[in-house]
């Protein structure tokens, strides 16, 4: 049976070595780690932040907290740990600035939510013509999911975390993480019925 392997990079000896090297004063080691996990981590953060500047700030904060607490680092997967820090940071920000950070409540003068605006921005004419439009439509539709479901969806589909790791990030059971994923898939199916037809018939 064909299995879609997770797209994540597993915590390996390199990560522990880099962390130890940084602790010993080798600043370049941190650069290697930041570069290694930059794409999935920043890609995740930017989905749940208020824009590039905000995402930059959270990204920096994640690494600062990770390094400051590296003595408590026990997990096998560094990326999963970084996601957990990012998740906690974003939850804190949402609680603190609920009115401005909520993605699903109207945030703009025309009544659109942050999610709507992000979705619209991603469906620009240029993007439509570059051959990635189906993926972008799925991504845009996923932006309209409730936060928990959206988070599971991104952590699984883009960061490639296992459900066990996602459950750790969200501090919930594996079954809850799975159920959130299933709700997300169900909503996407309804919202993108035509695209799902394409997925079934033509493949990608």
């Amino acid at each position, binding site marked *: 049976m064909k299995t*879609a392997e997770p797209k994540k990079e597993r915590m390996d000896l390199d990560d522990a070595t880099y962390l130890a090297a940084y602790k010993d004063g080798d600043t370049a080691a941190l650069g290697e780690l930041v570069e290694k996990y930059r794409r999935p981590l920043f890609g995740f953060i930017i989905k749940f932040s208020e824009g590039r500047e905000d995402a930059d700030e959270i990204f920096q904060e994640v690494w600062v907290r990770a390094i400051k607490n590296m003595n408590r680092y026990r997990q096998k997967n560094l990326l999963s740990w970084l996601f957990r820090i990012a998740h906690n940071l974003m939850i804190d920000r949402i609680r603190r600035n609920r009115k401005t950070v909520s993605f699903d409540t109207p945030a703009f003068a025309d009544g659109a939510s942050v999610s709507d605006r992000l979705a619209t921005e991603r469906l620009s004419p240029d993007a439509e013509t570059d051959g990635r439009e189906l993926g972008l439509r799925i991504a845009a539709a996923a932006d309209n999911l409730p936060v928990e479901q959206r988070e599971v969806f991104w952590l699984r589909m883009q960061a490639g975390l296992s459900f066990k790791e996602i459950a750790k990030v969200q501090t919930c059971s594996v079954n809850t993480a799975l159920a959130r994923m299933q709700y997300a898939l169900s909503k996407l199916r309804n919202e993108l019925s035509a695209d799902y037809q394409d997925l079934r018939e033509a493949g990608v």
Partner: protein
Amino acid sequence: MKTVKIERWLLLEQSGELPDRKRQRLRRELESSAEVRRLRDELDRLYGAMPQPDEKPGPLTLQRIHARLGRESRPLLFFRQWKPALALAAGLAVIAGLLIFHEKPGTASAVVFATAEADPGEVWDDPLAGDLEELETLILAISESPLDIMEL
């Protein structure tokens, strides 16, 4: 088997978390049901269709992380290094304060302070009142006597 359960198993199978026993059962389901195969293909294709994240943090992000780590670790180190000395200094300051400000009652400074603070209408016992009265009587007695200053 219910579709919800099958989908759950497919998701776990996709992430490599489905136990062997369940994987064998799932394989049988896949062989026997076109609907399960359709669901599996749909998930695989959805997974494949997802765009990879290509956003990058700002070019100065790493320098800022280094700067923040340097900035935030320094005060901590400073405090830890000087903690015993700071504790000793605080202890000495408390002892010195006790020695300086702990004076016996009835001294001049206390009287002056109490006089300044006293309510004019309030009746209170002045420990020097008797002496002052005696001094006043003496002065009056001297002033009433026909003593010529030149004789002195």
